[in-house]
């Protein structure tokens, strides 16, 4: 079967001067630059590319255009590569997929022998009695399924993304697309032309040329490429057309995301295979595949050919083959009368036998290749008469009809309906801005295709705002090109109607007979169209056959939605470069220099503790705050500026407490509820001016708070401006008995005297020469100042504080110590000590609700919740010192064998010398001194006693110094 290369002008894509050597199944193969893997293999006589999915039958290329899984191979680490689309490069390591022991000696062939015991959907019938059977069979099925392999050690390439914009995006670089692109560009539009092949020209690059046809298309392509307003992407696949003309276009390792005002789909049509016994043998291919092999890669598709015809185009294939030196043994024409087209006459004139009203009833194989066919007269839809003697051949070229590639049109919202005149789907209705050109839209003959492309291009340009005269529609001319449902069941089966999924005609017939007779049910039960190529080549045949066997018209049979992607983006395309935001505070590098162990806090990184050892670091950091002074980077806190005449009223409606009466220069706690009364965030509001509040929110909650504020104000329309300034400011909390001395030492324009700047005050001034906003607050329950400064100047302030604090025992303090400090004060952390339903009373935060207020978000719900009997209460507890195990957060409170609550926070307090925490308990267990039980690790029950909070400094004397 070895096929020498054909002479020029065959082989327009290959460079005969440059050979490229790669390996296939461990063998060295030499092809030419420009070859695909499949064409190089074919040129070397290797027609079998794979073993089929279920039965491990030999398979070769059918379309030579990436339309069937037969051509999928493993290339190095890359699974499922279309061998008929991937160009060869030196040293590619190509292997067949889904074989057990290699392509030639695949042990999986044994499965094929059992095929009669694998009726459609067989796996639903068996493997489940006894129950344990599935455990045995499931791993077997898993190993048998799947095609390529991916190794966890596979290296991953560099992928990136680009954003492209066009007035008009044209998908498909055939004559229709070229004409559309040129027309749109000439009308003034910026055009992006996307072509999946390596060259422009579409079917004109491989079909039998009309007189001057090639020159005309080449001239058109040259004008398109030279046009300054056209950008051409070749070897680029439009994977999906999403809402608002948003296109996913892959090219190499790049994902182009394209926004276009108009889209012209000029994706053409592909030939449909015929279905007969043995139609899956290597050497049986579409007529267009044989033409592609010859004209694109100079590969002779066989020595002796039988052409199966359903239209006149088949005769062009026969002529092409004959001219390339292939002996055309016979043309079997499904049509009772092949007609009088000159092409038919030309074939006859060459002495080629034309058998009218004849089909291939069966193909016979030898050495994994087609060796002969038996012809038979067509007697009706899908039936044939007496079968003839074998006719030897090593190539069957099928040209029986077409399926327009309408997937992108469907995704774009077009309505596609069956057409009984052409036996092809027809574009019935297109949404504004979406256009079809050429054969995808039903226009076929060369000069009309260009006319249709020009029309579509102009219409698209006009839609994109480039006014130009738009010609009227070009009448469709698809009749006679497609033989209806060329599916010929054979009594002995093995007529494949879905190559990907290894489905035979009787699988479809049986599935329908068993009741899976809607196309969507049929697809799911039989898996037709569920394979790697999603049934591009064969869905129409399955649908036609289903209609035939159920005698239903198409609307009742239904249609399959072709979903994105077209050939498949790689996951790397979609992921692009790693771009997960990782926010660093202005002081991040200072923390690292101090040896901090960093932790994730929402989108931010924060120092968990300074130094490698958690326990000792936390103890030292807590001690520093309690006895001297600590310094905490609180820059990740959400920060919002609320300004305007209605600022106070706005906060009153957003938060639970009172703010209209808050004096300028004062700070007050804020608590935010959702509309069901559940707590969603907290922080403080500092009134820096009558019409200006500076509000903090939690690190993880600020984005939601900001969004909700905008959402509500869009309804309320209050005179208020809301700005999220989280990243603009850094915050440093200087906390501990020596904090006043340290801030004083750094130098400040603010009077720090307790009377001048009391607890819960806010002042603006300079600290260490940096403009700052100071608030006397702090989670930790000590004298302290939270100093907010422009982020750009935080480093200078931090350094100044470190220097000034040296003599006062100042230490930087991390999140872990901060948690201990806050828990010693009994402060609640929203999200840890609350859940999605916690309301203020349960969390003992009722004090933060303005009782006289008429409205705030969540108030109606809260009124109802408060009127009901409470079901739980958050209490402080001290662990029994004799407890065998210290429970962890979210260990359960157990009462009489049932869940009565949970521990939300727990820590060993070195300050207090005991283990303290917060827990939800049932209301009747919330009283001080009540003992309750917690189930710790290993099921150990330990007891804890309800104690009042704050645990530390209950009179709050220290923070108010």
């Amino acid at each position, binding site marked *: 079967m070895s096929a020498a290369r054909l002479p020029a002008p065959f082989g327009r894509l290959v460079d005969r001067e440059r050979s490229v050597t790669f390996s296939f199944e461990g063998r060295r193969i030499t092809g030419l630059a420009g070859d695909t893997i499949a064409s190089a293999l074919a040129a070397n006589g290797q027609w079998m590319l794979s073993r089929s999915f279920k039965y491990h039958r030999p398979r070769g290329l059918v379309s030579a255009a990436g339309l069937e899984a037969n051509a999928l191979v493993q290339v190095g680490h*890359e699974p*499922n590569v279309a061998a008929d689309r991937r160009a060869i490069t030196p040293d590619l390591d190509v292997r067949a997929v889904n074989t057990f022991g290699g392509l030639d000696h695949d042990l999986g062939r044994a499965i094929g022998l059992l095929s*009669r*015991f694998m009726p459609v959907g*067989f*796996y*639903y*019938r*068996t493997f*489940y009695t006894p*129950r344990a059977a599935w455990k045995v069979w*499931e*791993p077997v*099925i898993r*190993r048998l*399924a799947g*095609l*390529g392999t*991916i190794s*966890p050690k*596979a*290296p*991953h390439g560099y*992928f990136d993304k680009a954003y492209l914009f066009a007035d008009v995006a044209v998908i498909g670089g055939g004559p229709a697309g070229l004409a559309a692109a040129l027309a749109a560009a000439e009308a003034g539009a910026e055009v992006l032309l996307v072509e999946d092949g390596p060259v422009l020209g579409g079917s004109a690059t491989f079909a039998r040329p009309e007189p001057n046809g090639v020159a005309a298309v080449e001239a058109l392509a040259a004008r398109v490429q030279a046009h300054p307003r056209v950008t051409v992407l070749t070897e680029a696949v439009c994977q999906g057309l*999403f809402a608002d003309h948003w296109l*996913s276009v892959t090219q190499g390792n790049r994902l182009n995301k394209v926004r276009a005002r108009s889209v012209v789909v000029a994706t053409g049509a592909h030939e449909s295979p015929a279905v007969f016994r043995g139609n899956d043998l290597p050497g049986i291919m579409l007529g267009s595949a044989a033409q592609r092999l010859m004209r694109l890669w100079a590969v002779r598709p066989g020595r002796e050919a039988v052409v199966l015809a359903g239209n006149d185009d088949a005769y062009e294939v026969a002529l092409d083959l004959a001219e390339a030196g292939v002996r055309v043994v016979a043309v079997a024409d499904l049509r009772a009368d092949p007609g009088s087209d000159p092409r038919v006459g030309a074939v006859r004139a060459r002495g080629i036998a034309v058998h009218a009203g004849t089909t291939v009833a069966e193909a016979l194989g030898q050495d994994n290749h087609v060796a002969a066919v038996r012809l038979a007269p067509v007697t009706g839809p899908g039936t044939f008469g007496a079968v003839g003697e074998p006719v030897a051949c090593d190539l069957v070229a099928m040209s029986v009809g077409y399926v327009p590639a309408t997937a992108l049109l469907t995704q774009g919202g077009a309505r596609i309906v069956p057409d009984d005149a052409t036996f092809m789907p027809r574009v019935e209705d297109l949404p504004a801005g979406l256009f079809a050109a050429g054969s995808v839209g039903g226009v076929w003959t060369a000069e009309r295709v260009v006319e249709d492309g020009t029309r579509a291009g102009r219409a698209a340009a006009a839609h994109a705002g480039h006014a130009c005269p738009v010609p009227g529609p070009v009448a469709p001319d698809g009749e006679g090109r497609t033989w209806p449902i060329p599916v010929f069941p054979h009594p002995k*089966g093995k007529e494949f109607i879905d190559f990907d999924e290894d489905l035979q005609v009787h699988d479809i017939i*049986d599935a329908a007979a*068993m*009741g*899976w*007779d809607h196309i969507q049910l049929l697809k799911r039960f039989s898996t037709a169209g*569920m*394979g790697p190529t*999603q049934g591009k080549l064969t869905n129409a045949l399955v649908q036609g056959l289903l209609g035939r066997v159920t005698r239903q018209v198409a609307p*009742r049979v239904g249609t399959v939605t072709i*979903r*994105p992607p077209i*050939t*498949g*983006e*790689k*996951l*790397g395309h*979609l992921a*692009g470069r*790693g*771009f*997960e935001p*990782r926010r660093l505070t202005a002081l991040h590098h200072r923390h690292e220099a101090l040896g901090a162990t960093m932790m*994730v*806090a929402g989108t931010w990184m924060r120092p968990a503790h300074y130094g490698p050892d958690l326990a000792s670091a936390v103890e030292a950091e807590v001690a520093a705050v309690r006895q001297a002074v600590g310094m905490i980077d609180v820059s990740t806190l959400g920060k919002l500026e609320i300004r305007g005449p209605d600022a106070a009223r706005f906060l009153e409606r957003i938060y639970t407490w009172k703010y209209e009466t808050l004096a300028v220069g004062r700070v007050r706690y804020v608590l935010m509820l959702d509309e*069901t009364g559940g707590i969603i965030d907290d922080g403080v509001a500092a009134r820096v001016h009558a019409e200006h509040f500076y509000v903090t929110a939690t690190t993880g909650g600020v984005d939601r708070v900001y969004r909700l504020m905008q959402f509500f104000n869009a309804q309320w329309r209050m005179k208020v401006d809301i700005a999220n300034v989280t990243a603009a400011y850094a915050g440093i909390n200087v906390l501990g008995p020596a904090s006043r001395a340290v801030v004083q030492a750094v130098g400040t324009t603010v009077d720090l005297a307790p009377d001048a700047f009391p607890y819960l005050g806010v002042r603006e001034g300079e600290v260490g020469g940096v403009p700052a906003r100071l608030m006397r607050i702090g989670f930790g329950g000590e004298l302290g100042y939270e100093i907010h400064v422009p982020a750009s100047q935080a480093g200078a302030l931090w350094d100044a504080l470190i220097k000034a604090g040296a003599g006062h025992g100042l230490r930087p303090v991390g999140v872990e110590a901060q948690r201990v400090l806050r828990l010693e004060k009994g402060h609640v952390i929203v*999200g840890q000590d609350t*859940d999605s*339903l916690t309301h203020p009373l349960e969390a003992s935060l009722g004090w933060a609700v303005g009782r006289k207020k008429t409205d705030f978000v969540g108030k109606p719900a809260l009124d*109802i919740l408060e009127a009901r009997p409470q079901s739980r209460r958050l209490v402080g507890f001290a662990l029994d010192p004799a407890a065998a195990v210290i429970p962890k*957060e*979210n260990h359960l409170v157990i009462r009489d064998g049932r*869940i009565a609550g949970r521990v939300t926070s727990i820590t060993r307090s070195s300050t207090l010398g005991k283990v303290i925490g917060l827990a939800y308990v049932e209301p009747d267990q919330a009283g001080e001194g009540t003992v309750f039980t917690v189930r710790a690790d290993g099921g150990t029950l330990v007891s804890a006693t309800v104690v009042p909070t704050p645990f530390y400094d209950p009179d709050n004397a220290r923070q108010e110094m």
Partner: protein
Amino acid sequence: MPLALLKAGFRSRAKAPPRELPATPDLRKSYDVVIIGAGGHGLATAHALATTWGVRRIAVLDKGYLGGGNTARNTAIVRANYLTPEGVTFYKESMSLFETLSQELDFNIMYTRKPHLTLAHTDASVRTMRWRAEVNKHLGVASELIDEAKVAAIEPCLNMSRDVRYPILGALHHPVGGTARHDAVAWGYAIRGAQAGVEIHQLTEVTGLRVEGTRVRAVETTRGTIEAGQVVQAVAGASSLMARHAGLRLALRTVPLQACVSQPLKPVINSIIVSGSLHCYIWQSQRGELVMGGAVDPYPLWSTRSTLDFKEGLMAHMLELFPFLAEVRMMRQWAGMADMTPDFAPIMGKTPLDNYYIDAGWGTWGFKATPVCGKRMAECVATDTQPDILKPFRHDRFTHFDQVGEAGAASVGS
């Protein structure tokens, strides 16, 4: 070789195999029970009504083909490791029904146990996983908070590097999670239900409900009006629209939920991996496809269109967990519609109408509840009382502030 296959193998090719999925019969004038929606839930309910409760005249109506809504669109994961005692109890019963469902239906629904790992990337999620584990264990559901080393042992190809944006700190390990062939569940119920007398009417759209006083008298369809003794709606994705026909307002927000599969590969991932922080989950089907999904779309929409944005966001996170998948190709993406409740728990059972029952609010967690829904909804209809296990899910809980609080365990659609 199993007997069923031998029999099929020796059957004559010329003879058509017997019909299993029932054809749509003519519509009668009246039925004892009309179930709107021939998805998994509706069919399971019909099956249980016919087989357990002996109800004879049951019609299941669907505007499309059977099992074509969210039953066809989910990602087939089943689990019981929820957060609230109400939820865990409910899904635990569902899991126990799944265990024997193939045998009960005499149809292989391919229920497959797989380790289910919900990854924790922050100390806050470690806390949540411990909470779920403790509640699960208390109620007899196998669940454990495990550390990094155990995570790596269960799924060795996970990227356990600490040098990533969200390192894996541990996971909630639910060894009895699994998957089931979603379509097969609907088909099994349909086939066995039909054998017990259930009529399934495909391509029969309900256009209205005739309500008189506190009863639904008749169901108006595109094929005529039928009288009904009792009416059940099980139309996930369109629940609020159907309830409106009955004059009911439901606390639902309908948002798209998307998913996708890769091209088929030989086995590489053996467990179900979920990351709430990264909004993604993945498992590998028996066919070798990687089945992947994430959180619901961030906007309400009655549409099943799919988006590029979804895939991009999902894969950015997926490749954090499995960098080696970069070279794998997508095969198909799709969308369903999720009826989200405020508390991420379903709405089930009786309604203010005497003979109208609702099975809704299935958000992203409906498939795994299919068997228990069938069993308990049938009980609710047959006895006209709300079974205890469904009491937490009654439809008026939102007006009475009795929410279930399942957000912590149900927000990523796995």
